[in-house]
């Protein structure tokens, strides 16, 4: 990983990887969505609305995973001063905010036919909403630091402190048993969902993850190109 902290080496990986991530992500997502909409049976209790699972769960995982990425980039910036870590943090934030917002929106849409309400101040819903606001704060702070020509250390500290919210989101369904269901899917096995309903989920999960990765790579490439252009302009002005 340390090797890719070099921008030139990172770009040699990122340029071909962007296309691969996009192509493979779209392919897996199309297969997962087709399976989720047209192949899997309706749930005996939730009926057709269970199909929202295949888009809601990936957006929730990526909303949280995005902040885990920001926290890792922040740690790398504070401890090792990796030149790419601030760029990575700034690139992850809009993608993470988008998926956190999509998680809240799809959860609300799912809640109406299932719980009879669009919104409830439930532990899981509220902590997810806080995560979305944390993303907005991080984006504003990182942009302000970049404008001032700072290294982004305040944003990095914010990224680390904000990670406290991740275990709160994860355990909220255990700590506050209100409306949101408890954990029913586990990557280590033991899911309580029937296999004939569950199989499209890994496809949409990996598909959305690859598209998330493609968006982050593209934002990092844009940021690095801007840095190169600014450096060239500064040199031109100095000559």
């Amino acid at each position, binding site marked *: 990983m340390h090797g890719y902290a070099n921008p030139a080496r990172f770009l040699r990986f990122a340029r071909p990887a962007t296309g691969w991530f996009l192509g493979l992500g779209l392919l897996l997502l199309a297969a997962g969505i087709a399976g989720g909409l047209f192949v899997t049976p309706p749930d005996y209790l939730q009926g057709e609305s269970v199909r929202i699972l295949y888009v809601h769960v990936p957006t929730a995982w990526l909303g949280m995973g995005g902040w885990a990425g920001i926290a890792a980039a922040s740690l790398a910036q504070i401890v090792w001063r990796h030149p790419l870590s601030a760029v990575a943090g700034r690139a992850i934030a*809009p993608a993470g905010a988008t998926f956190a917002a999509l998680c809240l929106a799809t959860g609300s849409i*799912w809640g109406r036919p299932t719980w009879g309400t669009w919104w409830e101040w439930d532990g899981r819903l509220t902590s997810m909403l806080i995560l979305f606001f944390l993303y907005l704060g991080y984006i504003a702070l990182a942009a302000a630091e970049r404008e001032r020509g700072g290294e982004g250390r305040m944003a990095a500290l914010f990224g680390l402190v904000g990670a406290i919210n991740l275990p709160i989101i994860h355990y909220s369904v255990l700590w506050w048993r209100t409306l949101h269901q408890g954990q029913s899917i586990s990557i280590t096995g033991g899911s309580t969902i029937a296999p004939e309903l569950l199989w499209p989920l890994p496809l949409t999960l990996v598909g959305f993850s690859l598209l998330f990765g493609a968006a982050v790579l593209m934002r990092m490439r844009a940021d690095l190109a801007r840095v190169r252009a600014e450096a060239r302009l500064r040199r031109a002005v100095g000559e």
Partner: protein
Amino acid sequence: MNHWPFVLAAYGLTLGGTLGLLAWAWLSMRAAENAAERLKQRP
């Protein structure tokens, strides 16, 4: 209650949001890389 309008709204919103994010990231990358390339080629 017919659940399909809720299902289609959730899928439409998620796909629209994801494709919008990708389009924005793609366009901003192309613009920044083209600008950097133009500056590089300037004598």
